[in-house]
């Protein structure tokens, strides 16, 4: 074959792991007000949780929380976006939209975890990072970038799980993990379907169409090789929260155990190997082709060598 072509992932073989309900329906499930939230997972799955506060520079963000806890016989650092259960709590939690303080706290707690060789678990559930004058003034972009860097550089095992809404950079900021899990009715997207529809369809009301073409479901993202495991919800999590939480807990436990078995100890060599494996994981993500030069007379586009 004359064409040099690579694909990072093989879409053709990806199969939906669940019944075909629409992407937009999943968005509504992911945002359901009764869906279990980060603290519900922490309190059900962990013991001895001590929440740690503050970014040491400006404030404490209640929309992105973290602390130490016992999970599966280990001390872990757990981080996650926290939405509110009612209007009052949602105002306090800023609807789960973190500010720079949240990402700086995350970076601080990640360094803390590394210092004491504690594995990190992150729970993702946010519409996105807060857009606002104050957040811009205090460096929202820089804060997110530094949280990404802290996660990429981390020398301890990390498992992330999208439990509800995985919204854009504000979600990814705590998502650069060795394993990425997703609950079946969670979604994870580069932008909200409404925002995408407003830009590309010039009509936010066409969000359902946008949701479908954006490929934001757990099954899609598993197919793209981004998500390592989809945690099934026998019924939607808001109907039986405890079942979903326990299923998530079992999956988190299994992946964490696997990572620790693969990367035991905290010697320099193991740490480097772990960082390297994480890099390679993200290194592979993307879709591209390599074309031969035009002047070699070859066609510019070819078929994927799946």
């Amino acid at each position, binding site marked *: 074959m004359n064409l040099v072509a690579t694909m990072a992932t093989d879409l053709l073989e990806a199969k939906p792991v669940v019944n075909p309900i629409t992407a937009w329906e999943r968005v509504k499930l992911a945002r359901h007000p009764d869906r279990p939230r980060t603290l519900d997972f922490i309190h059900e799955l962990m013991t001895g949780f001590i929440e740690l506060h503050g970014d040491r520079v400006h404030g404490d963000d209640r929309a992105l929380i973290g602390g130490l806890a016992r999970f599966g016989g280990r001390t872990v650092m757990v981080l996650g976006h926290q939405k509110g259960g009612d209007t009052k709590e949602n105002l306090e939690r800023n609807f789960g939209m973190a500010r720079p303080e949240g990402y700086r706290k995350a970076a601080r707690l990640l360094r803390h975890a590394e210092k004491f060789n504690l594995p990190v678990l992150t729970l993702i559930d946010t519409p996105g*990072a807060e*857009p606002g004058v104050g957040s811009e003034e205090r460096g929202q*972009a820089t804060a997110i970038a530094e949280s990404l860097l802290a996660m990429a550089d981390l020398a301890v095992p990390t498992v992330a799980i999208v439990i509800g809404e995985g919204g854009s950079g504000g979600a990814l900021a705590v998502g650069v993990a060795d394993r990425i899990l997703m609950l079946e009715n969670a979604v994870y997207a580069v932008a909200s379907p409404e925002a995408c529809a407003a830009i590309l369809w010039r009509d936010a009301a066409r969000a359902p169409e946008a949701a479908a*073409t954006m490929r934001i479901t757990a099954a899609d993202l598993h197919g793209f090789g981004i998500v390592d495991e989809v945690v099934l919800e026998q019924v939607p999590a808001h109907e039986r929260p405890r079942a979903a939480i326990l299923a998530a807990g079992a999956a988190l436990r299994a992946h964490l155990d696997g990572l620790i078995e693969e990367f035991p100890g905290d010697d320099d060599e193991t740490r480097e190997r772990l960082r390297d494996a994480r890099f390679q994981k993200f290194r592979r*993500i993307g*879709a591209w082709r390599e*074309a031969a030069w*035009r002047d070699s007379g070859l066609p510019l586009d070819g078929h994927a060598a799946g």
Partner: protein
Amino acid sequence: MREFFQRRGKFRPRDVDQDGADIQIPEDLWVKCPRCQELVYSKELDHNARVCPKCGYHFRLRARDRIASLVDLDSFVEWDAELRPYDQLEFVDLAGPYAAKLKQTQAKSGEHEALISGWGTVEGRPIALAVCDFEFLGASMGSVFGEKLVRASERCVAGRLPLLTISASGGARMHEGLLSLMQMAKTVAALARLGRARVPHLALLTDPCYGGVTASYATIADIILAEPGAMIGFAGPRVIEQITKQKLPDGFQTAEFQLEHGMVDLIVPRFELRATIGQLIDLYERPSQQDSPNGVSAGDHREPAPVELGGHYGN
């Protein structure tokens, strides 16, 4: 005044799908400056590094013009030009399939993707460059953008070559869905390795610089430079105004605002950029060379070398 660089049309990439001629700007065109509203003769603007001679406004530069304006004559070697974007999602919006949009954009822009990478020398010192082309879908961060930046960074680790990223971007490329978002993680992870190898990463933020780019590789650089007046932020001003119903403060999100808020190291006017980059590479590349007998370094205060540009692509 010397010509700062040749007209953009002349830096035609070697492998465009269509002839670049149809997007050349006629030499006698008048351009209206968006800041001072004065009309500027297009050729005069080109001769002035596309900085308004009336008010100093920095017009946007195409990626290849930017590269030509920085590197020594004929020194730039492009990397990974053969990488092509690919519509893995089979994304279709109001305007039709992403695949079709890509072809259109490639034809119109004369580029295959929004990031041009390679290496060259600046005042004789080797440096890698990864430069956004905002004309290509707003330099949104797709898979090829990410892959090219990662490969550039890997070459920099291997060759201990300093990296200069020059960013201008609207953010993520929605047509590539979560694959696009993941480029933030991918590029940051690559630059984390560059950092552990202690190879310097310099970033230049230019107008406009938003979203995924600002919130990933561009702001974790060792040194962050910005062009005067460039708009830089996470969320765009219109989005913020719509959501918060607040009037934005004067000068909000300008490079000067970002300097005042501690987010950038320095603002460098376009005319000084080449000299500043040269000086910075110099500071990192010979950290403890004895360069004068009397204890004070000589040769550090170089005059900016005459800017020789662009010729190697055509003129």
